[in-house]
């Protein structure tokens, strides 16, 4: 099954035994131009996907970090454009420990999603990075939310693009002034830090 556009894999098989057998180390180049080196952790020819453990340090003799966490890539082997065999390590897998806590994973996922949603709330859509940093700065002390490309502070004061102190509208005088002041100071601070 050669998917449309998939390049053929140029592999240098000599001496490595089975292709993509677990423990082999390859230097891989993919169709998008990305390159990396990794140890094969798993490979399944049916979907033709390889799971690599990424090697940071490029010494071949190093043992992969035992257990714990790895930087990994799951690569569609159909899109591997360049593959060179670098060596082999002993079995990097400690298969005794291989059990997956589905519930834990689900919980982790749920948490991550909540986090991501909260972050997404904070992100303005279609706003400049400068606007976003102003928003972030304001949000440290004031309750802010996005309303299209306006920043809505305390639900009453609106800061329009380009987010200067004269773009602050609405709200009571006190609130307005406060937002203006905070805005000025935050701008100054951002300038200093050169965000």
């Amino acid at each position, binding site marked *: 099954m050669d998917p449309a556009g998939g390049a053929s894999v140029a592999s240098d098989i000599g001496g490595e035994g089975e292709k993509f057998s677990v423990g082999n180390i390859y230097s891989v180049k993919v169709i998008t131009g990305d390159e990396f080196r990794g140890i094969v952790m798993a490979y399944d020819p*049916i979907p033709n996907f390889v799971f690599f453990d990424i090697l940071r340090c490029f010494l071949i003799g190093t043992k992969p970090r035992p*257990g714990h*966490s790895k*930087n990994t890539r*799951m*690569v569609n082997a159909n899109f591997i454009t360049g593959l060179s065999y670098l060596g082999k390590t002993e079995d990097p897998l400690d298969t005794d420990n*291989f059990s997956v806590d589905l519930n834990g994973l689900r919980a982790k996922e749920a948490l991550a999603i909540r986090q991501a949603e909260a972050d997404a709330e904070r992100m303005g859509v279609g706003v400049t990075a400068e606007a976003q940093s102003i928003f972030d700065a304001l949000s440290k002390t004031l309750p802010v939310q996005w309303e299209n490309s306006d920043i809505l502070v305390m639900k009453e004061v609106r800061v329009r693009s380009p987010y200067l102190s004269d773009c602050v509208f609405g709200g009571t005088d006190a609130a307005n002034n406060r937002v203006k002041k905070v805005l000025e100071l935050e701008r100054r601070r951002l300038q200093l830090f050169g965000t």
Partner: protein
Amino acid sequence: MRGILPGKALAYLEHALKSKSGDPNARIADYFDVAAGSGIGGIYTAMLLGSRDGNRPIFKAEDTGKKVKATMKPVLHSGSSSNGFSHRRVEKEAGMNNAHPSADTTENGWEAGSVDTLSHKLLVYFTTCNIGHQVEVHLKNGSVYSGIFHAADVEKDFGIILKMACLMRDSRGTKSRSPLVSKPPSKILIIPADELVQVIAQDLPVSSNSVSDSVQCEKPLELLTDSLISQFYNVDLERELKPWVPDEDGPDCSDLENVFDDPWKRGWNQFEVNKTLFGVTSTFDEELYTTKLERGPGTRELEEQALRIAREIVGENTRDLHVAEERGLQLSGKFDIDEETKYSSVCTANRFDDTGYEDEEEDILLDCCNNLTFGDSSASDGKKPASTGKVYEETWGDSLHLRNNKIVDQSWSNSNKHTHQLMSEQPSKDFPVAGNNIRNESQLGEQRKSKFLGASLYNKPSEESVSGLEDAPPSEKPSFIAGRLGLLSNRAKSESSPGWPGSSISRNSENSAASSASNRPILSPSSSIGSLSSEKSTLNPNAKEFKLNPNAKSFKPSSPSAKSPQSSVPDGSFYYPPVPPMPGLRIRYGMGAAFPGQQHPMMYNNTTQLSPNQTYYSPNSPQYPQQMMVTQQRPVLFMPPTPYQPEMPYKGRDSY
């Protein structure tokens, strides 16, 4: 999945027509004049009735269902998030069965031990580990998405699903974030396998212990770092530290290098300098603050004795974690006791945790506590010569001298009271070794307990003048044994331990002279900052009950060269005039006359010389009469630079 069942129905219809009519080539089109359908039905209609040659339809009825299945599959898999294909989510769970070696139900008849299954399982396993993790997905067209890995189609071709996916880089390769965030993150993003190039995960936990750990670590997010709280996103990455090398053209202060090499021989005399520069004569008299050392013929022996005792102490074995560290002993085999356990003086009371690790911490802490409480049993056993490092006194073992029993008579402020810091006005003599200020909370605890008589009398507001309240710190103990230079290890103690910030401790060297020697109970203070409790067992049986004597004169520190006679107040009966709380206010009490008859030159270190009959009028504080009168000869050390309060923040033995 639409249309498959109707397709089957049509196939059956055609089959029935064929058998009923006996014509194997019969088609539905032969028996129906009109056919119509919408959606998939329209497609079927076209298929069943359409013909190339105008004669026979192209498709058979049974083809309809199959074709639909074949063509719909890729359609189903592809598509953007806007399609409501969530129901097509192919759950990892379905594939999870493969991962367990025992459940081979979906193996499709493959051998359990075949390589293919194993590798498939492995792949499935690793892919599962990705769930919930933030991953970066590269697509064939060059775009990069970042999102939370949700599922993958392990049965088929490993198309994946991401949640909350943001486009990091679009297909043109430009980083879409830089000027604008163009699109909100997609809640669900389905990526078909033939678009998927790679899925990159950082710090992916792959083994079961790490998986569980990481999940559990998600929960206690109470541990927030400052950057998190302040949402400081410009956190600098760590950089490698390099040792500082001075600039070549910087000033060459080479003599600064060895400033600290000779600590005691620097030849710097601040008093001299002051005199020269400012014309200020110092009235500092060391003996006001410390026990006067009798230097005489016996001095050398005494010093040697003291040193010996000090060595003993230092060389003692100890089970106290803190002490061990001081002495450089490796107390516990575990190197991973956290800092809190090591350096905190608080015994946390989590006695109910079951982990062994915690137990060990507990034990260690308990040891410390116990030692503080009950004294190190090996206190004087260790005769190892040790370097005379700091004499770290922690245990009270046998050499507990109880402080001045007479001092028990005095009230002394509660820890709750915030009195002025009794600074080091320590008339008792210290041994040379005892020059180190050593703190021991437990001591104070002991002291408190032992001294606390008539506590109710002394629950005064904080501003009481603590005239001469003496907790007899042990440093005095030696001096209180007959001969003043004790044999016992000098557990010198500083005046106020941090544990009792409020307690005013001043010492009365006279008082404890005789009595302390005889009294060495082993106290059981709480080593943490405990509350006062007067345990009778720890009290000095010889103590007199304190009675407030309103007419008593204040105590003045005894010094052999003391100018005026001792006050008539019996030693140790200090009193606290009930003073209404006024910040910094000391009201003289009990002296009757506003200006005492005594003449004591009150000497200040500032340029204004004040005769005792003059009140010091501070430029910046309210005047009130007679605050600063010192009744007896008592040099008061006044520090001009401090913001003036009419009386010093601390007055040791003054009465006011």
